[in-house]
């Protein structure tokens, strides 16, 4: 799978639909997806749905199951039903999976984001090296702002969010910007808080905003209202603001899913953790054609990506 | 008396509540310009009959005739429209509203944006003047004394041009002076043609005021008479259905040591002003000290301070020699106090609890009632059954919710609970207010009995008859202070009455 996308950035033609088209089916396996937020959240859950779509897979979906108990019941239910591959798209589901997976040795479970499989041989784990994209986004942001302040709208200070935010800070400061100001609101879902946080950053002089979690949709609005560029992550967030989303780090899980499917079809149902990275094309910096980023900046970003890929730059 | 059609005629009214026949084929009439008194024990069905008249309940059987025509009264509004007014036994006032607002309620169609409070206020002042019903229209009702609230109730009815006015125990909470004032007003009203239904447990009032008297017992009419042909004793017996002893015998008792001592007591009232000022009292075992006084002169605050329910500013209290200054109610009780509060439904009993539970309210922690850490239900039942029996509490079962008992029976229940715990000191506030003659007699007898057993009894009452019937000594409170303490032998109604106005 690491020979997926050749380029690590993709610049969209302005005005094109960013929604993902159904690809040619790569497998006959049946899939089910259990996810904590809505399947079309333009963030974490949608990144998985889009990835499956690219692979031509139409899974059964149980979404919005932020209650771990409910998710566990759904995961177990799909396994009982005989679905071949059950994707548990939520870190918090891991504990339940550790109990369920051994009961269904012929089912393959795919779980993320997680960096290990808890020693289970029918579980694959996946995670993003989100700091990589964060670094690139931060670098571009610094390039655009010329030393001005930047604001980051964070949710709870944990998980991938921290990786992305720290990567963003590293990228921005490496490119000569002052350290971006970071606010963790304490909630993944409180749009009002994210909105006011963005506004606070703007009032404090921020010229660029970024953020992660489904609550940031409010922050994008603030960016739009103040004509401030926005950097997205997880899914392509151009739909939120056609003009001001500069670039989104998009999770292409299909890169690792492809490998997993190959293994499963070959009889190995799990046992490995796989990362999506800039190297393997699982992380793609999707640049918004409508924003009109200078070609020189795009070229610079390509350079940074290349350096991250070859290890010259450590984004953490 | 005229022979023309009566203003009101109730024909064969029957009303059933679950398990209770509250009115049984009751007929009753009122003519213009007369006062018709309705008498009966607690729970006889007086209020129920009047609530039917006022549209609060619907009769199961029977007719209401107003001015000779059959009337349908389905709600208070229709009663008011037909010029029936009612002053309820339990005040129907909204304490957080002003007097004007209380009067104005319901006058104005809610579709009318603003009530014309100025006009209402002006009219209230007119009525006040005309009938001597003094009250400040702009004051919040919760700040008023009981007597003043009563006046507001009457103003409410007069404001609505009531031709037929029902007064359900209007005097229960009034001072003798206020009662006299009220009677002046009522006579003025009858002179103007208003018909009045007057309900009271105080027989001398009934005899003084009414033109005719009807007696109810157990929901049925058991007697009709006129004042000229009867007296208190006979009325009492008509009500109760047996002989009644209106003044309990008070055998001579050796007084013991001081059981309750109050000295230099200062207490602040709800309104933040001094309510009790430098009060000294000693009550000995075997003695009943009556506290007379017009309501609102610090009696309530004094009682609450002794019971541990109110903070005191200065002074000290001791019960049986133990200092109980500033203690909690539980500690005051532990020192030997029994307390019969003035407002029995608010402070004396838990309405939702059944009879047995209320009898356990104070002593529930007693080891008698507990086995292996749990309630011993047999013991509790036996205890309750004994008290109900001994104190003649009329209740269908031991597990009847207390709120459905009549006032007199609730008071007997509280008495039973408080007296059964072998107290050293009994503090009883308004022990027979609103209680019927039979029950009052009973309660009085019990208090005198306790005195005989060497208990110190402090009775607070606005009813001079009661104070005189019970007390060995009479203390008079005025403006927060004890202005005079009489020996029973030296006290006359006149001298006590005068002291109550502050003249010593």
């Amino acid at each position, binding site marked *: 799978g690491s020979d997926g996308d050749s380029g690590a950035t993709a610049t969209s033609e302005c005005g094109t639909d960013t929604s993902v088209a159904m690809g040619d089916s790569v497998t006959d396996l049946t899939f089910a997806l259990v996810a904590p*937020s*809505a399947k*079309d*959240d*333009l963030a974490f859950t949608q990144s998985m749905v889009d990835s499956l779509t690219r692979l031509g897979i139409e899974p059964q979906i149980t979404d*919005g199951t932020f209650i771990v108990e409910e998710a566990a019941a759904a995961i177990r239910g799909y396994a009982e039903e005989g679905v071949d591959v059950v994707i548990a798209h939520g870190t918090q589901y891991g504990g339940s999976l550790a109990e369920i997976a051994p009961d269904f040795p012929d089912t393959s479970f795919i779980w993320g984001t997680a960096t290990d499989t808890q020693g289970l041989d029918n579980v694959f784990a996946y995670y993003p090296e989100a700091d990589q994209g964060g670094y690139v986004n931060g670098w571009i942001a610094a390039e655009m702002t010329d030393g001005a302040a930047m604001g980051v709208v*964070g949710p*709870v*200070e944990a998980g991938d969010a921290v990786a992305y935010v720290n990567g963003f800070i590293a990228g921005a400061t490496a490119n000569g910007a002052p350290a971006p*100001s*970071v*606010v*963790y*609101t304490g*909630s993944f*879902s*409180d*749009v*009002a*808080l994210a909105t*006011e*946080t963005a*506004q*606070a*950053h703007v*009032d*404090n002089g921020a010229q660029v905003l970024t953020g992660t979690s*489904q609550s940031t*949709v*409010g922050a*994008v*609005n603030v960016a739009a*209202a103040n004509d401030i560029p926005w950097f997205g992550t997880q899914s392509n967030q151009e*739909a*939120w603001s056609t003009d001001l989303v500069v670039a989104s780090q998009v999770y292409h899980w299909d890169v690792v899913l492809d490998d997993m499917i190959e293994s499963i079809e070959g009889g190995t149902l799990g046992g490995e953790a796989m990362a999506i990275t800039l190297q393997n094309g699982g992380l793609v910096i999707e640049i918004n054609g409508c924003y009109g980023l200078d070609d020189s900046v795009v070229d610079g970003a390509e350079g940074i990506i290349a350096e991250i890929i070859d290890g010259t730059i450590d984004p953490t | 008396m005229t022979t023309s059609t009566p203003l009101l005629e109730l024909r064969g009214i029957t009303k059933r509540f679950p398990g209770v026949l509250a009115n049984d084929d009751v007929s009753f009439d009122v003519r213009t310009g007369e006062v018709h008194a309705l008498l009966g024990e607690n729970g006889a069905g007086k209020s129920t009959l009047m609530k039917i008249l*006022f549209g*609060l*309940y619907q009769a199961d059987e029977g007719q209401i005739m107003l001015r000779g025509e059959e009337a349908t009264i389905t*709600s*208070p*509004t229709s009663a*008011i429209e037909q010029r029936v007014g*009612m002053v*309820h036994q339990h005040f*129907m*006032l*909204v*304490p957080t*509203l002003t007097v004007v607002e*209380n009067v*104005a*309620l*319901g*006058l104005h169609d*809610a579709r*009318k*944006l*603003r*009530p014309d409070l100025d006009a209402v206020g002006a009219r209230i002042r007119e009525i006040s003047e005309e009938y001597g019903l003094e009250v400040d229209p702009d004051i919040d009702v919760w700040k008023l004394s009981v007597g003043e609230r009563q006046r507001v109730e009457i103003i*409410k009815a007069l404001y609505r041009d009531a031709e037929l006015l029902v007064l359900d125990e209007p005097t229960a909470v009034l001072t003798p002076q206020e009662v006299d004032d009220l009677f002046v007003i009522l006579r003025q009203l009858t002179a103007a043609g208003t018909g009045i239904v007057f309900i009271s447990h105080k027989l001398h009032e009934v005899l003084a005021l009414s033109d005719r008297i009807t007696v109810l017992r157990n929901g049925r009419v058991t007697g009709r008479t006129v004042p000229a042909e009867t007296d208190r004793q006979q009325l009492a017996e008509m009500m109760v259905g047996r002989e009644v002893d209106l003044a309990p015998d008070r055998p001579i008792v050796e007084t013991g040591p001081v059981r309750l001592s109050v000295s230099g007591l200062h207490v602040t009232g709800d309104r933040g002003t001094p309510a009790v000022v430098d009060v000294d009292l000693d009550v000995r075992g075997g003695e009943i000290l009556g506290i007379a006084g017009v309501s609102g002169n610090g009696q309530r605050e004094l009682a609450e301070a002794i019971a541990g329910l109110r903070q005191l500013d200065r002074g000290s209290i001791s019960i049986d020699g133990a200092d109980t200054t500033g203690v909690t109610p539980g500690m005051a009780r532990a020192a030997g106090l029994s307390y019969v509060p003035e407002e029995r439904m608010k402070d004396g009993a838990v309405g939702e609890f059944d009879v047995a539970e209320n009898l356990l309210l104070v002593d529930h922690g007693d080891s008698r009632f507990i086995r292996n850490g749990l309630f011993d239900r047999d013991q509790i039942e036996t205890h309750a059954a004994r008290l109900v029996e001994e104190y003649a509490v009329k209740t269908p079962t031991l597990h009847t919710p207390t709120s459905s008992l009549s006032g007199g029976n609730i008071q007997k229940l509280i008495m039973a609970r408080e007296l059964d715990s072998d107290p050293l000191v009994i503090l009883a506030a308004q022990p027979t207010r609103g209680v019927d003659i039979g029950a009052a007699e009973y309660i009085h007898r019990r208090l005198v009995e306790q005195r005989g057993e060497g208990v110190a009894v402090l009775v607070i009452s606005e009813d001079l008859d009661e104070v005189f019937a019970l007390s060995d000594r009479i203390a008079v409170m005025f403006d927060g202070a004890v202005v005079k303490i009489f020996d029973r032998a030296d006290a006359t109604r006149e001298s006590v009455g005068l002291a109550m106005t502050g003249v010593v």
Partner: protein
Amino acid sequence: MSDFFTLTVLVGTLASGIRTAMPYLLAALGETVGQRSGVLNLGVDGVMLLGAFGGYYTVLQTENHWLGVLVGLAIGLGMGLVYALVTIVFHAEQGISGIGIFLFGLGFSDLLFQELVGTPRPIKPLPKVEIPLLADIPHLGPAFFQHNLLTYVAFALVPLTTWMLMKTTFGMNVRAVGENPQAADSLGVSVAQTRMGAILFGNTMAGLAGAGLSLQLAIFQHNLTNGLGFIAVALVYFGAWRPRWVLAGALLYGMVTATRLRWQSLDIIPRGASDVAAMAPAIITILALVLLASRVRGPAALTKPFSRH
């Protein structure tokens, strides 16, 4: 710390606090009137969610904010009818009915959103209305006089609600039935109608608050309110059933929220303490109430259904 006391930051904080307070204030004012009539509504959050979705969806379709506001009001009114039916006609326990309304609103708004919209698509936010002259006052203008119309409406409703409660026939009846419904009934005031009116007012305000929230944030998503409606109910207690104190509570909550976000943004609160910062509005609200030590009693008949028998 000194960064915070620059004028722009202070002005921004004030403006943010006021913005944040708006939906709380609208909902809490409505609930205040409801509770004054003796009816507790724990379903405010659910009604807000429905109003928020209705307002959002209308604007998404029509781009007309006022239509959106109207729809929010109408949804609030409709839910008010439901709540009145349940609590007044059927005498249902108010606490549990409110939670029923909350669950229904939470689920149904999300269901509609998933079926009709799916991906959260931003709408145009409510436009700011600059009050002529006042908006131009340096510093004060941007803080107080450059808000969306609903914010002004919310603040204007504080004296209006007080006026309604204290001066109108309806308000007098509301206070009476909330305190002593028997007394009101005995004078021919319809307890049912009065409470119905108060419930309709309260729910309509909740619907408006919801629409105000989604139109101000210019977005909808699952559980957009995040418990805001419950906090609004809490603010009624903070305000001891007095609109101006409810306003004080809403402003306090909004201002503390705004301040903590700005202090985090300025690194006055270090990054690692984000959770502590997030607790601040809740803790400060409680502490403020402890210090105020208001011992005002609530409406005596609160949560008690009325019947004559």
